[in-house]
């Protein structure tokens, strides 16, 4: 199974994502320079974290207008699984592949911290083998991660089951205290209506080896494994 990890100038979690993927059996991760034009050769696409184009102007906006995103849009329409992590999430939003906006954290500061999220839906390729209502410990690291969407559209997110992850506390509740950046309804990750395009602020690639986790967990890996199992299921159908 071939996964493309797109490297924009300024991406800085690309190699980390490759490393995390390479530890999963039967996965062939490929680092793809943003000028590549053969994305259709891959089974899934990941837009990694970082500061594409320095996040100048606005996080993710320049990358969202780069030529490779036309291919990403086409493939998204065809149902290819696409995951945007952190800056990748920002790019997907700026490219109108996902709804809403990512604003500056309400603390007005960058935050690097391990958080706990709850899986809200398992209809996406990236949560396919996870239980709805289960919890993951994954770190965040961002300046612009406050998810916002107008109330009317928020209703649609619920209606179409588009909320993928929410920040929760130790009791499993999406409380104010558990909300690191002021995101509306503690939203940490969403998907498009079809469910194949997912964006999330937490970094699963940083939570894929127990030695790197203060909790000795490998919850990030579960997201990548989920994708593999989903692809296997699709190919069997």
């Amino acid at each position, binding site marked *: 199974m071939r996964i493309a990890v797109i490297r924009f*100038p300024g991406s*800085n979690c690309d190699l*980390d994502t490759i490393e*995390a993927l390479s530890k999963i059996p039967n996965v062939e991760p490929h680092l793809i320079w943003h000028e590549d034009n053969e994305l259709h050769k891959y089974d899934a696409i990941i837009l990694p974290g970082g*500061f594409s184009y320095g996040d100048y102007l606005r996080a993710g906006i320049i990358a969202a207008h780069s030529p490779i995103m036309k291919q990403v849009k086409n493939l998204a329409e065809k149902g290819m699984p696409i995951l945007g992590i952190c800056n990748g999430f920002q790019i997907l939003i700026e490219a109108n592949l996902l709804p809403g906006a990512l604003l500056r954290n309400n603390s007005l500061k960058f935050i*690097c911290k391990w958080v706990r999220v709850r899986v809200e839906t398992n209809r996406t390729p990236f949560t396919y083998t996870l239980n709805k209502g289960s919890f993951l410990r994954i*770190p965040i690291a961002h300046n612009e991660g406050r998810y916002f969407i107008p109330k009317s559209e928020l209703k649609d997110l619920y209606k179409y089951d588009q909320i993928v992850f929410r920040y929760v506390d130790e009791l499993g509740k999406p409380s104010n205290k558990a909300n690191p950046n002021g995101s509306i309804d503690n939203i940490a990750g969403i998907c498009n209506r079809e469910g194949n395009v997912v964006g999330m602020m937490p970094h699963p690639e940083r939570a894929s080896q127990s030695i*790197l986790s203060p909790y000795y967990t490998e919850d990030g890996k579960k997201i990548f494994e989920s994708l593999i199992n989903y692809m296997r299921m699709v190919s069997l159908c």
Partner: protein
Amino acid sequence: MLKDIQLSLTNNEIRLVRKMLGREPNQLEWAMIDTEWSEHTSYKSSKKVLKLLPTKGRYVVIGPGYDSGVIDVGNDYIITLHIESHNHPSAIDPYGGAATGIGGVLRDIICMGTKPIALIDPLRFGMINKSDHSKWLFINVVRGIADYGNCVGVPTVAGEVEFDESFERNCLVDVACIGIGLKKHLILAEARYPNDLLILAGGSTGRDGIHGVTFASKVLSEKSDEERSAVQVPDPFMKKLIIDATLEIVETGYVRGLKDLGGGGLTCSLSEIAAKGGCGVEIHLEKVNLREPDMSPIEIMLSESQERMLFVVKKEGLEKISKIFEKYDIPYSIIGKVTDDGYLTVKMRGEVLARLPAKMVANAPIMHKKSRKPEYIELYKNIKPPEEPKNLDEVFLKLLSSPNLCSREWIYRQYDHEVGIRTIIKPGQADAAVLKIPNEKFLAVTSDGNSKHCYLDPYYGAAGCMAEACRNIIAVGGKPIAMVDHCQFGDPNKVDVYWTFVEAVRGMADYCKALHIPCVGGKVSFYNEDTVTNSAIKPSPVVMVVGLINNAKYITDMSLKMVNDAIMMIGLTKPEMGGSEYYEYIHNLIGGIVPKVDFQFEKRLHKLMDKIIKKRLAKAIHDCSKGGFAIGLVEMCFPNNLGVEVDCSKIPSINCRLDELLFSETHGRFIIEVSKDNVEDIMELASKMNIECNVIGRVCGNRFKLKMNDHDIFNFSIKELKNIWSQALPKYLGEI
């Protein structure tokens, strides 16, 4: 000619230049020599003293004298390490100054052909609980580090902060960096082969940062704010591209020399690669990619514009290398070539503008400085101890929230310390950071400084910085293998200041020699004083020590883990209160005896700890330093909200009053958590090595209970203490 430009050279130096050249240099030549012979680039006042530091050892590949020190960590891998500061720029433009400081140290790592994997930020400011100016500096320095480090994708994994009134006008903003790479890709800043091409790549050359080094080589004045143009403009995005492109280019095998452009700009880089490689260089100024069209040759040669690298490459590699620059959209131009004449020749459209022997430019004459022990030293040593406070509860709570001892979370939350997926021990979890490296080993990293100790006793203060840094490494399960130092002092022309510099270097050197820890690089920053308050900073040597951990199972943090485990104290507590947080913050008292370092004892202590770690006898290890025993112990309680019951009469000590027992900063001590079955083993090992050691209490409940025999000293809830400790910094900054 000379009268038209302002030179910082001394009259002797001016005479020497004329004599060595046998002619009168032109204006451009004067400017070049002036820059390269400035204190900042030449180390002319410090070189002789720095020779005291040992530089050789079994792990050392490259010692001081290059952009970074190089250490062999086995399995064909090397690590590079360097420390820098951006004190003067940060004092004027804290955000830009701190950011470009990181840019500088990153270049020192990548120009060895290695990939930066960690940043470490030791910072020093005035009292943020009193001064709005210091608050402003502090907030913006941290923001500058965060914005730059986070964007460039190198994790900031460790650091330290010290607050002291002496840094009110001159904050110290240091940054250290670690790189990793394959030994076969190591590249030096040398031009060895005539006809190799010189490629200048990266940012364009502009007017920013001109005379940055001469600016750094004088004291700050009221007019300094007008020198903001001497501070460069940060561009972390460009730096990220340069890192990626440089590492890709290094892999082609065509690069024969690499040098960053930092202080002194082109002048410095060109003269140094030529002098080190024993060759000459010839460059053509019209080829330099300029930001502004009408720059003079002097401006081009001295510009310190950021994000530039100088590549010395084999001709055959030009095509391949150009493609990589183009892939990353990095501007580059071939500005000249290596020659065999030993001269640094600067041309503009064929006309020779300057022609100087590279070795002469690169090697400023060494200055001999006078030193004299300042009078205050003896005066402060013999002060009378303060009266023992009646209410120790109050003292303890006040210390816990003091700017120097409270939680650093406000800072490190803003730093991406996870990027690169190698940070195993993260900020706040232990005394040092631990990083995974590709050869299946682990690297422990820490930095330390203690200006309060160094002010009262620069020798033991500086030796103590080394001792504490080594304890930090040991506390996470590592073995110290190398250090870099950063000496920060006032005006070296003042005999008092110079004496403290010499003593501090001597202290570090004696420690390094005794414990066989080589110094592989460093930096000196003088003139950290200002004419407004007419005072210098306290002597502030800062060290970064790295250690190696061969096996993941040796990695230890400082959190207490299990109820009923024994708490043991290793080492003897003495009434060495000089420069302690307790004296200075509680009693407002400067003076007393600074903690001494017993080099022979340190050797035994390192051996004992090595045995304890290898046998995995300790579950948590924390070194006992700033704030003393009581603060050290409570820090171990916080992560898991576990309480303790400790009898202070069991602490091995000599002649200590109760307050001294609790808050003395004596070196050579560790607090460890041990399961009861292992207590005997540790007692035996310690007694064999003649090291004081005792069980002082146990882990239990969620209260911090200290007593002396049957008499209660403290009884606090851990939660309450943790709130005070963790909210202090945000409170000083007015956020809560």
